[in-house]
């Protein structure tokens, strides 16, 4: 089963990458604000059910993919990927 994990810097955590992206976009004339940069992890998970897959991916997030001190995560199951 395909799983996509979105990892984001938590609110209040300084995100210098987001700030740099925002500055560049503004220089290009886009009126943006509050840009934040996270990461996307696509996975193929072996699991019989969606619940089992979600539980597995949650454990992956807690142990490795995100650092709960500074990052939040979101799991999307069965998404189509190109």
């Amino acid at each position: 089963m395909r799983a996509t994990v979105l990892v984001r810097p938590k609110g209040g955590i300084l995100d210098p990458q987001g700030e740099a992206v925002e500055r560049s976009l503004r220089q290009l004339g886009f009126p943006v604000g509050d840009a934040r940069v996270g990461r996307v992890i696509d996975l193929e998970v072996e699991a019989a059910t969606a619940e089992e897959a979600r539980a597995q991916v949650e454990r992956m997030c807690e142990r490795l993919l995100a650092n709960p001190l500074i990052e939040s995560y979101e799991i999307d199951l069965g998404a189509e990927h190109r």
Partner: protein
Amino acid sequence: MSELRPRIGVLVFPGSNDDHDAAWALSALGGDPQLVWHGEPELPRVEAVVLPGGFSYGDYLRAGAIARFAPAMDAVAEFARGGGLVLGICNGFQILCEAGLLPGVLRPNASLEFVCRDVPLVVERGDVPFTARCAPGQTLVIPVKHGDGCYQAPADLPEEQVVLRYARGANPNGSDRDIAAVANAEGNVMGLMPHPEHAVDTLLGSGDGALILASLVDAARERNYARA
């Protein structure tokens, strides 16, 4: 009586690049460094462990996030839980944070620039095994070289665990409360972003890093005598 040279393990991860510098410095200061490959499930008999600087696993995901699962890190965690002395330098500090052996986490520098320069540090605590040769309030000049050195402290980090601070106005990376080195509550594990192993000979600039590493060698030697 010849002084005993205490054995100090220096971990080597794929991507470590200050392992030999740390070993050289520890040896010059009276230690007997033992390089330990990250895949080893057990530590040899050592009185202290140093996690050196570098870019273990290419800093993929987050600095130190993958190295913390190396087999040798289970042994280091057990060693630390038993009261063993563990010092993490730069990437070693990042690994200790990711492993939960130290509080907090290190993020990309606020400037987003790699910083490489000497920085003045103020000693906040001179009573942990890593700073016994320093006096509180003393200023040390030790170089930093890192891209991910912005320390994010947990909101409830006790002031007593702050061992070194960047001097006022000299914070090179945006770290919370100007923290440059933090210890665990017990004081047997410490991490710092500056590189004491690159400041042990005045011929190359500052010799202040020797105070940190010689303090560690002293403490390791005492433990070796206590064991003998």
